[in-house]
Each structure stands twice: as structure tokens, then as C-alpha cells.
């Protein structure tokens, strides 16, 4: 007898894992299929990590409502799953009277959506509360509920909790075809065929291709590239709030934000692309980002840039596409989830659970749902006394692998136990290799630990999956 899943979620990014975690409250057989080596390796890993208050989009759009609700739900999620979330507030900055009028309109729209605590602040307030902001800034819309979170750690933590609640996660599992057979879908990947009553398509940049496989929707995803540049942690106090210019028609513009690890971040660019795989950074992108960022904070120095990356936003029109495809019973598209997708994810998850229920999925609560996830321990972040105790209890906490970010061998091993399979995965989870030496000192050690923990030869260790092996061979 073939085993049939209740729901298969295609795509292990922020929406896919949030939906999986939400559905794992119920007595359902669930699986996530992810084509990359680890969850979060697609669109989500290059997200800006901002939990938006809901001030940026037209109030009539679905994404605006999901953003405001998501901002509230993310806080609950962060508490339950022990994800670092910091509410830092944002300022949308205006430079003249024309901007002032636009800020008033933004405030009106956001007030109507129920975004809490908004106020227009003046030059004096700005001088006092955001000293490095350009002296030419005259006004700003202050939204206190903006926050920062690590996008990939949020995905990992959702996946880990979903998995603890019974969700099966298949990585390196690319869906090649979907065949509807009566009430059950047959989902074919190179190594395995899955059967499921419902499919939720969260395939990000490839959601259009996945939908087409099932004949479910003829929307098109057009990629839009964004380049971001990270500054040295030494500049952590460059700004207090997240700084935004007034938004343009297609993007929020070049921002000055910071990651939840404390690195200021400038960007992103916004460029429509042909190639979904193009993740190059460019000299032109750097020029544009510096120009935009310096308009907000003139003291930003190019020499403080320590890392950069590019990501692609999965764009499909102006709004999110979240719907059951009535022509293909049981198939739900969750597509075009660009910004504010990270913020909205938990609200999207609730909405999708509702859609599934309305189309015949029985949601019966589990007797025992693991709501909480234990926070992983990081030496020193827990204080000297606790660190001392932990090192004594488990000696490998005292075995430092990454000197720039002070990551121990124990933390690297724990990350691998939690699902890291690649060098990038270890970096995203632990920050090892993410510091100023960029892995020059710790790469060999992490390679060996990965090989040991996953019972592989060190030659097969990859940066981010097949084809990205670090070394070519053993020395002859």
C-alpha cells in the first residue's frame, strides 16, 4: 500500500516552513520537499531580515494586511521558538515639504491598517534620536514596531520545530513533475515518488514552474535582484533605527538597517532580471547602494564593508498570490511572496491553514504539540558564570573553532545535528566563518567536523550543495 501524505509543501523557505509548522499542530501527515541541500537556501537566505510594521504598501493589498498581522504573530513565534527578535523601530525619512506630504499620506494609510504607534517626527527629534542621520533630513515617519530577525535562523528554527512535531523534511529533492490521480497527487522527484492529498506550492522563484507542472495557475514569476552590503560589527551603533527613504513604485529604496547579529547593512538594489540564477554582485550595484545609503547617513565608509551578497525577489504582480486553484482540487499556490514576505510568513501560514480547511482538509488538534524550541547555547552570550559551568560540563564548549565570532566545536556539532549539511549551513546557524577573516582560520576544522559528524569523506564536503565541493581531491 502506498503511503499518502495529507499535505506536501514544495519549498523549504520562510513560507514553506512557517506553513509546515502551523499545520504540524494538527493530526496530519506532512512533508516539505526542498531542492537545495538545506532549508532557507533559496530566496530566504538573502532576505534583509526586517520585520516590517506595515507602512510601505497600499492598504488595499493583501500583503499589507498580512504584514500588519504578521508583525504581531512573529513576536509570538520568536518567543516560542527562541529566535532573537529585536524591536528597533524604523524611520521613513523626508527631505522637503513634498516628502512631508507623502509621509502624511503614508501615515494615514498605515493608521487605517492598524499599524500601532506611528508619528511624524521633526528635525529636532531626529537630531536627538538619530544623530548620524543626514542633517538635510527634515521629517520622518516613525514606526516603533519595526524589528530585526535573522531570516535564515528563523527558517531553520521553524523547520526544526516542525520536524519535532512530525513534519518530514526532504532536502536535495527537486520536484520534476506533478500528476493528479483522482483525489491524490503524485509528486515525482529524481529519487522518490510522493503521494499527497493536498499540495502547497511555496517554491519561491520557481513557483510558476511548479504550478505549471500541475496545470494549476498560469502566473509568471519575474526575478528582481537585490544587492546588499554588510558593514563591520564595530559600526553596530551607526544608527539606532532602521532608516528608509520614501518608497518608489517598485521598491523601498536603499536602506540603512542592521542584522540581528549587529552588522549594519546597506542596500538593496532593485533590478528586474531574466535569469533566476543570477546572484552576482556588481560594481554598479555597490555604487548605487553607497550613494543611496550616504544620502541617509553621510558618514558611511566604503572601507567598512566586510561582506556582500545578492538575492532575487520572486515577483508576480504587485501583490501576493495565495489561493486554492479551483481547477485543480487540493492545489494551493503561495506565490509572489516578496517583501514583506518574512514579516507576513506566520500570517500567511494561518491563511493557508484556513484555505486548506475550507477545501476539505480536516484540522484536528494534536493531543500534544511541541510549541517551544529550546534556545541553542552560545558561549559568553549567556554570561560568564553560565559559560564557565557549561564549559566544565561539556569540555567541547571550550574548544574554539571560529575565533572571530567565538564559536565552539560543540556549537558546530549541534548545528550539524540540527540539520546543517554544508559549510554555508554551519555559517548560517552558528556564525562560524561569518566574521572578519571569512573562514581563513576555521574552514579546515569545520570541514573535518562536518565529515566526521555526517560520516563522509572530507573531500565531499560542500559550500552549499552538490557541485560546490570545497576541494577537488586528496593531495597525491
Amino acid at each position, binding site marked *: 500500500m502506498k503511503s499518502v501524505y495529507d499535505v506536501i509543501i514544495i519549498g523549504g523557505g520562510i513560507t514553506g516552513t512557517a506553513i509546515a509548522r502551523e499545520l504540524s499542530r494538527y493530526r496530519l501527515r506532512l512533508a516539505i520537499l526542498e531542492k537545495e541541500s538545506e532549508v532557507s537556501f533559496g530566496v530566504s537566505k538573502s532576505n534583509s531580515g526586517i520585520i516590517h510594521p506595515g507602512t510601505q504598501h497600499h492598504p488595499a493589498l493583501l500583503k499589507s494586511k498580512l504584514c500588519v498581522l504578521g508583525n504581531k504573530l512573529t513576536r509570538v513565534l520568536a518567543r516560542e521558538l527562541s529566535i532573537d527578535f529585536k524591536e528597533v523601530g524604523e524611520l521613513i525619512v523626508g527631505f522637503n515639504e513634498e516628502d512631508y506630504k507623502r509621509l502624511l499620506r503614508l501615515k494615514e494609510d498605515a493608521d487605517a491598517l492598524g499599524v500601532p504607534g506611528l508619528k511624524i517626527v521633526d528635525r529636532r527629534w531626529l537630531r536627538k534620536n538619530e544623530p548620524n542621520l543626514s542633517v538635510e533630513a527634515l521629517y520622518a515617519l516613525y514606526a516603533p514596531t519595526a524589528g530585526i530577525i535573522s531570516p535564515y535562523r528563523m527558517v531553520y528554527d521553524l523547520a526544526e520545530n516542525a520536524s519535532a512535531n512530525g513534519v518530514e523534511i526532504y532536502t536535495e529533492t527537486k520536484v520534476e513533475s506533478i500528476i493528479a490521480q483522482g483525489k491524490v497527487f503524485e509528486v515525482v522527484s529524481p529519487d522518490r515518488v510522493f503521494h499527497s492529498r493536498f499540495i502547497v506550492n511555496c517554491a519561491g522563484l520557481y513557483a510558476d514552474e511548479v504550478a505549471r507542472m500541475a496545470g494549476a495557475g498560469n502566473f509568471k514569476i519575474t526575478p528582481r535582484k537585490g544587492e546588499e552590503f554588510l558593514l563591520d560589527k564595530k559600526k553596530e551603533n551607526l544608527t539606532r533605527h532602521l532608516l528608509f527613504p520614501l518608497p518608489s513604485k517598485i521598491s523601498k529604496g536603499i536602506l540603512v538597517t542592521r542584522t540581528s547579529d549587529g552588522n549594519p547593512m546597506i542596500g538593496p538594489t532593485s533590478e528586474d532580471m531574466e535569469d533566476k540564477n543570477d546572484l552576482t554582485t556588481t560594481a554598479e550595484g555597490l555604487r548605487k547602494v553607497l550613494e543611496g545609503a550616504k544620502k541617509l547617513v553621510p558618514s558611511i565608509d566604503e572601507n567598512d564593508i566586510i561582506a556582500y551578497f545578492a538575492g532575487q525577489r520572486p515577483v508576480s504582480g504587485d501583490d501576493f498570490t495565495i489561493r486554492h486553484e479551483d481547477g485543480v482540487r487540493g492545489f494551493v499556490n503561495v506565490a509572489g511572496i516578496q517583501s514583506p514576505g518574512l514579516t507576513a510568513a506566520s500570517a500567511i501560514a494561518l491563511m493557508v491553514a484556513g484555505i486548506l480547511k475550507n477545501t476539505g482538509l480536516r484540522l484536528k488538534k494534536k493531543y500534544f504539540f511541541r510549541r517551544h524550541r529550546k534556545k541553542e547555547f552560545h558561549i559568553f552570550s549567556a554570561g560568564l558564570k553560565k559559560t564557565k559551568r557549561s564549559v566544565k560540563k561539556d569540555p567541547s564548549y571550550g574548544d574554539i573553532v571560529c575565533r572571530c565570532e567565538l564559536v565552539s566545536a560543540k556549537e558546530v556539532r549541534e548545528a550539524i545535528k540540527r540539520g546543517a549539511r554544508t559549510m554555508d549551513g554551519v555559517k548560517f546557524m552558528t556564525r562560524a566563518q561569518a566574521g572578519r577573516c571569512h573562514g581563513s582560520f576555521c*574552514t579546515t576544522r569545520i570541514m573535518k567536523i562536518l565529515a566526521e559528524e555526517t560520516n563522509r569523506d572530507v573531500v565531499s564536503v560542500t559550500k552549499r550543495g552538490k557541485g*560546490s565541493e570545497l576541494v577537488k581531491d586528496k593531495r597525491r
Partner: protein
Amino acid sequence: MERRDLVIVGGGPAGMASAIAAYESGVKDILLLERDQYLGGILNQCIHTGFGIEYFKEVLTGPEYADRFIKKIRNTPSIEVSLRSFAAKLEKDKTLTYLKPGCLNEVKPTALIMATGCRERTREMIHIPGTRPSGVFSAGLAQKLINMEGLLPGREVVIIGSGDIGLIMARRFILEGANVKAILEIQPATRGLKRNVVQCVEDFDIPIHFKCRVSKIWGQARVEKVSAVKVDEDMKDIPGTEFNITCDTVLVSVGLIPENELIEMAGVVIDKKTNSPISKEVNATSVPGIFVCGNSFKVYDYVDSVTSDSELAGKMAAEYIKGKR
């Protein structure tokens, strides 16, 4: 809290030379912290020859050079060596927190010598655009992969920068059967030692392109090629001179930065440009009793000079400790 006359952070050539000199100048209570599982520091991965010509009047390999000091330290019971010990925190009053498997210790020395060496500048610091595939290594990491781990990082190699480690690694890759397609140097002349240019590059007919920079790295999963362009006197690209080199590996050898983040925590004044302590005198810092020697004080060309200057640091620390009694 443990008290010591002298704590030395770093068991490479600088740390070892300063420890021996301090002992010979009368300091009898020395703790030497080394984060690796053996003494010797970066010398252990420098298996080529050319060390010791000045200091020992002999030609030695890196590990042989290190071994002379390791033996001396082993025979000096007053120098306590703590391996796998990572200095994590330094406070203004010189209280040092270090970790080793199984314990976290705090120690307060009368004098402190930092011999923490340097790190390599990275691709990110020179903002090379393009993709971020596997196959981009700092030259020192490639050296460690080959010489310490017995692995071959790549087969078709392009080297950015003509510093000594880059030149030495060009030869090393060829000896392991890989192909070094080019060395690209933005300056009009090499930054490396003459002997390395002759023995590592000219003898192996490796093409060096001067006044040339890498403008882009290509490849999704693994490096596939680099784009390069010639630059003029003002380091501006010369249009029409662009060319591509297919390769699977890029080594970045564009200079070294002294590692001084720990003493910066303790309030030592650091030059923002060079990351060295600002000081009129070699090995001294703005904080009395904190000394810095070897490549963490300034980047040296020869280990022999590191040894001589670090011996001076040992003597300076000994003087300082005597003055405190």
C-alpha cells in the same frame, strides 16, 4: 583569579622567542597560551625552505625553524605552555579570559605580551564583484589545506596579488600537479621577495600580469572563470583591455592585517589603517605592561627579524616586571 608575572598569547615564532628571552632576563613565572594543539604557529604549514638564514646562518624549513624554539621551551620548566587555549577577552586591568576544552580561566599578569600574528585580507575587503562560489581561498588557507590536511583545493588556479604567500602557493600548486594559469597584480611590480619571484614563479614559467585587476568572479556552485582588466597609473580600468581566464580556483593573496582585536578591547590605541598599535617604540603600546611583538606589531618579511624583535619584547617585559616589584 590566577596571578602570573608574564602571560604570552600566541605560541608561534614571536611568542616563543619572547618567552625564552623573558626567561633569560630573569622572569621565572611565564604562561604561554597557544590556541592550536602544538606550538609553532603558521610556521607549521610553511614547509618550504628559506627560514633561519639570518638568525641561524642555516637554511631551514618552517617546521625545522619552529622546532629549535619548541625544544628550548620544553626544556624550560618555568615556561608553562597551555595548548588549545584560546584567549577570548582582555580587560583594561590586563585580566585575560581564556578557554580550553573543559575550562574557562581568568588570569591577571603583571605584564602581557601579545604575539597573535596576523590574518589575511579577503576578497570581500577588496570588493571583487561577481558570484560567491566555492573555490575562492585566501592563500594561507590553501596552504593549510594542502600542507596540513593533505587535500588539493583546485586544479586550475588564478592567483590575485603577488605577495609572498601567493608566490609560494603558485609553486606549491604546480608541485601537486595543478595548473597555475596566472598571477594578477594590480601594482606595477611584485610585492614579494626577489627570491620567491625567481624560485616560485620564473623557474616554473608562471605568467604574471602587472597593473591588472580581477573585475569579476564567475561560476554558480564552483568558480568557472575570472574577468580581468588592465589599469592605468591612477588604478583606473583601461577600456578594451578586458580578458577572461577559465579556472576552478581563485587564491587571494592581497596582504596581511595584524590581529589586535583583543588589545583593542583593553583600550590600546590602534592605527585604523594598519591595525597595528600606535607606538614610538617597537613592541610597546599605549598601555603600560602590554607589549605586542611579531606580525601582530607589524607585518615582517622574514621570520628571522620576528625572532630578534620578539626577543626584545621579552626583555622589555622583564624590565617592566622588575620595576613593579
